[in-house]
């Protein structure tokens, strides 16, 4: 039998808040710790690159497809990249399988901007014929279990899948030969790998890498993407507000997490 989701969510939120009164997260994590992260590459044989990422009970699968297309008029010598995130009933009982929800649009665009702002992919190297042909990278992210912090999970999985991807062979007419690959990987600068770090603010306390329960308890999300010591994107989400000091503090924490997560992404074989 299905549960009344809203009641369930309220109960979950209450438990989180109760525990926070004694400054404890339900899973006993430090406020500024990520949950356990596991990354598995090459999980989707039909994709040109793929990864499955688990962030605690949150699980996402990302596949990368490389096509050939016509470059945009304002960047005739560059390839393109598109990040698409899908939430459906498969992701959890709060979602519906149908036209993209506003949430999935927001999450996908935040992950897209983190990767784009890092400039980790050398778009110039993805040009085939100036003004005529270039490689288009499609990154499709499926949330297979939503337990909070989908933005960070999607960004990690997106980068892992991009690093896993091989460039397909093309024929003399610059059409993809499906199933055949060059020995080239995507032109990714390992010094520019982006890392997204998200927080939930609950009654003045900010928790890094929130679970779904913690997200139900809070009314303010903040995601900051970093690249080494640099900030590359911000996104405040939901209806709550934050102070300037809180923002600055979260930036510092995010930078302190960079090496840990980057290593996770880059050390994979």
């Amino acid at each position, binding site marked *: 039998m299905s549960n009344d989701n809203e009641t369930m969510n309220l109960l979950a939120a209450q438990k989180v808040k109760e525990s926070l009164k004694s400054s404890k997260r339900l899973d006993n994590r430090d406020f500024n710790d990520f949950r356990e992260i596991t990354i598995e590459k090459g999980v*989707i044989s*039909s994709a040109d690159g793929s990864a499955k990422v688990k962030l605690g009970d949150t699980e996402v*699968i990302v596949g990368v*497809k490389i096509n050939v297309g016509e470059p945009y008029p304002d960047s005739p010598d560059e390839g393109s990249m598109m990040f698409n995130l899908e939430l459906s009933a498969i992701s959890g009982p709060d979602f519906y*399988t149908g036209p993209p929800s506003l949430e999935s649009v927001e999450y996908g665009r935040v992950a897209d901007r983190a990767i784009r702002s890092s400039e980790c992919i050398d778009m110039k190297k993805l040009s085939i014929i100036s003004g005529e042909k270039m490689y288009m990278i499609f990154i499709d992210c499926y949330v297979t279990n939503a337990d909070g912090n989908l933005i960070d999970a999607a960004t990690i999985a997106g980068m892992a899948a991009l690093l896993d991807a091989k460039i397909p062979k093309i024929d003399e007419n610059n059409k993809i030969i499906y199933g055949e690959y060059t020995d080239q990987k995507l032109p990714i600068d390992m010094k520019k790998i982006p890392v997204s770090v998200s927080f939930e603010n609950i009654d003045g306390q900010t928790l890094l890498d929130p679970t779904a329960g913690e997200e139900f308890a809070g009314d303010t999300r903040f995601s900051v993407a970093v690249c080494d010591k640099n900030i590359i994107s911000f996104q405040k989400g939901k209806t709550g507000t934050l102070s300037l000091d809180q923002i600055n503090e979260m930036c510092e924490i995010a930078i302190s997490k960079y090496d840990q997560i980057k290593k996770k992404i880059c050390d994979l074989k």
Partner: protein
Amino acid sequence: MSEEKRHDGRKPNDLRPIEIKLGVNKNADGSCLLTWGKNVVLATVHGPKQMFPKHLSNPSKAVIDYKYRMACISTPERKSPVPGKRDKEISLVSGNALESAIMVEQFPNTVIEINTLIFTADAGTRVAALTAASLAAADAGLPMKGLISSVAGGRSNKQLVLDLDKQEEDAPDAVDLACAMLMPQKEIALLQMDGFVDIKETKEILKNTVKGIETVYDMQKKALIEKYPLEGEINE
């Protein structure tokens, strides 16, 4: 009929390896991750729950809302995320098949959402999805008359075979027959076929397919008994 080995080494009536994981999705009422050869499919069940808009609900039974979906990344060329006619037809006939197994009349005015998502496709995706969905429904504890077990049979390169993969399905003489049965009752709940085959061979393909369905059913039962030692027995 010759008994030549198939391109992947299988004998004519061999199925590809099937792996079943139940309850993989913590948020769903029931779920199943199934790998079937290269096919990878996730099925989840949510409900019964209230249906909106209300005027689409049925006062005498639960509405089965089955979605067969292929991920954009499941095919050689990136698939559009917009469902096509093929997706809609398969969703309809698969939902109908499952409805024959679920005691929908116990839940009037509600909807049972059954979602399947194919991550990698290598022919036989509709039967893989339906097999997984039936397990997810059982995992959700829905009252059922039996399980839906499903497999495809057919012909490829002059040989009658079970469980064709994409390469076999692309043969010029290919016949593709997808069948699902309510088990153990052995009632046919889904049947679709395309090809050009005489009546004798048709019957043979059907017979082989039923055998394959029994094999799938045994695997389903085994997976359920492993997870639910008691209930599994009662299911018989």
